């Protein structure tokens, strides 16, 4: 009975703020569009009919490509970074953690803006590239997919580190040492000892990176080419500029299904591979 009382507030709040909104999303996606920007009663599949447009399918493909690129880069950089952080002396470890957590305290709006500044023609990276002889003359590096990916990796990396940190800090060095003493090469020791122990959190970090990327609205809007705007931007403009909530809802469900599929596929690939 005390348990019921204890859980009453979480139950009510989650029921009202999670369950009901999702049922509503499904409902609105099959409601007719109303000029007021809301919806009217009735049932129609019009919003789902518009999903087959080539423009939308292209945007979905852009979302998937972006998600895979950002997730691969974040894990590729975040894994060694987290490993090195967990092997640092305590004080330096704490400084690194506070630094990474502080990058969370800048809104994606500001991060996107500062990437725009960094990649602009007047100041920024292109001047460094010219000085290094990598580019002939200073040029603006936005809008481009590279800019969007760089910005998203920046936003995702702290979350990757936070996800991998617990397991990597518990990883016992003796196991790797043992494998090495028994004659395993560093690569083999990594694949046979480290990978199986850390696969689950690594998959979680990869999927989380994909979800964060697929949902990101501001970075691709500010830094990306309009013809490569991913689903998130199109959903935003369907709701904000088009005032078409049923269409935005149907597109959201579509994106949700694609993300879920992508997550399941990732888990599948991870399970199938890496058997010593």
């Amino acid at each position, binding site marked *: 009975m005390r348990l019921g009382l*204890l*859980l009453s*507030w*979480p*139950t009510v*709040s*989650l029921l009202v*703020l*999670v*369950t009901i*909104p*999702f049922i*509503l999303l499904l409902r609105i996606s099959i409601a007719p569009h109303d000029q007021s920007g809301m919806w009217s009663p009735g049932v129609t599949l019009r919003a789902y009919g518009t999903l087959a447009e080539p423009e939308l399918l292209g945007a979905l493909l852009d979302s998937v490509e972006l998600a895979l690129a950002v997730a691969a880069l974040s894990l590729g*950089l975040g894994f*060694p*970074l987290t490993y*090195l952080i*967990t092997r640092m002396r*305590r004080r330096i*470890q704490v400084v690194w*953690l*506070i*630094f990474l*957590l*502080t*990058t969370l*305290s*800048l*809104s*994606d*709006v*500001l991060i996107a*803006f*500062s990437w725009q500044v*960094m990649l*602009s023609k007047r*100041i*920024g990276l292109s001047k460094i590239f010219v000085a290094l002889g990598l580019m002939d003359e200073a040029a603006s590096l936005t809008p481009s997919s590279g800019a969007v990916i760089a910005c998203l990796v*920046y936003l995702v990396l702290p979350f990757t580190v936070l996800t991998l*940190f*617990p397991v990597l*800090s518990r990883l*016992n060095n003796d196991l790797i040492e043992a494998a090495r003493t028994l004659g395993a090469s560093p690569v083999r020791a990594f694949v046979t000892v480290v990978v199986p122990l850390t696969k689950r959190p690594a998959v979680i970090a990869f999927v989380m990176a994909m*979800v*964060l990327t697929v*949902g*990101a*609205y*501001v970075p691709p809007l500010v830094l990306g080419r309009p013809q490569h705007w991913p*689903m998130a931007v199109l*959903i*935003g403009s369907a*709701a904000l500029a088009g005032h078409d*909530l049923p269409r*935005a*809802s149907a597109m*959201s469900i579509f*994106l*949700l299904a694609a*993300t879920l599929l992508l997550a399941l596929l990732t888990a599948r690939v991870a399970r199938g591979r890496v058997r010593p």
Partner: protein
Amino acid sequence: MTKAIGKFLFLTVLAVFMAAPLVIVAGVSFNGTPRMNFPPQNVSLAWYAAFFSDPAWMSAFSLSVIVASLASLAAVSIAFPIAYATWKYRSRMALLLESIARISFLLPSIVLSIVFLVFWSWLGHVGRIEDTILSHAVVFVTLPLTTIGLGFRSVDLALVEAARTMGAREGDVLRTIVRPIVLPYVVSGLVFVFILSLNEYIIAYMVAGFEVETLPIKVFNNLRMGFQPTMCVGAVLFMLLGVFAFSAVALIGDLPKLLGGGRI
């Protein structure tokens, strides 16, 4: 030797990558001219003066802080009972609630913004500050659930057992053993929600962006109209708030342990 150099280079490059936007934003805020120059020219605090004397910026700033404070309290009020019931009673109901609560963090934020826009429109309650607060609370409830769950799991049961055999009642055990261990984890959960809510843009914009103009929304609106270094001042204040909050967490608790680290 080469290994050490490689390690050093890797860490340096990543540190520069992660620090660059922070440095640029801070640098631009000290510019003497209303352009985005970096490094700053004619260093001055003019934009800080402009920020603090402009009621529109100040109201966006304080609105953000109010939303973030209340959202973090609401998120912890939902997460704490669930984490406690899971630990104390191994309740199935609590486990079910936990998975429902975690769903929202696993969804793309653009989808969440549409979900909450639809929900608040359905209630006929668009454009209120409560919308932003409650939406943020549910979206970020995963974070306190994780940290507080970690906190309860780090309570050594032998300690609890010892206290009981020595005659401590349930209330004594909670007060003298469980509370001091779990408290830093609660605080770190609060701080995480606070910082993420402070900076969240798209959900806040969708549910109440026209009426409840938080700082990220104001910055984005300003960006569209043209650049003004004033908005970088807000960013610097948030950065300082972030450094301060996470350093405070590191002072009251063991930061690596609070994040789930430490060898067991």
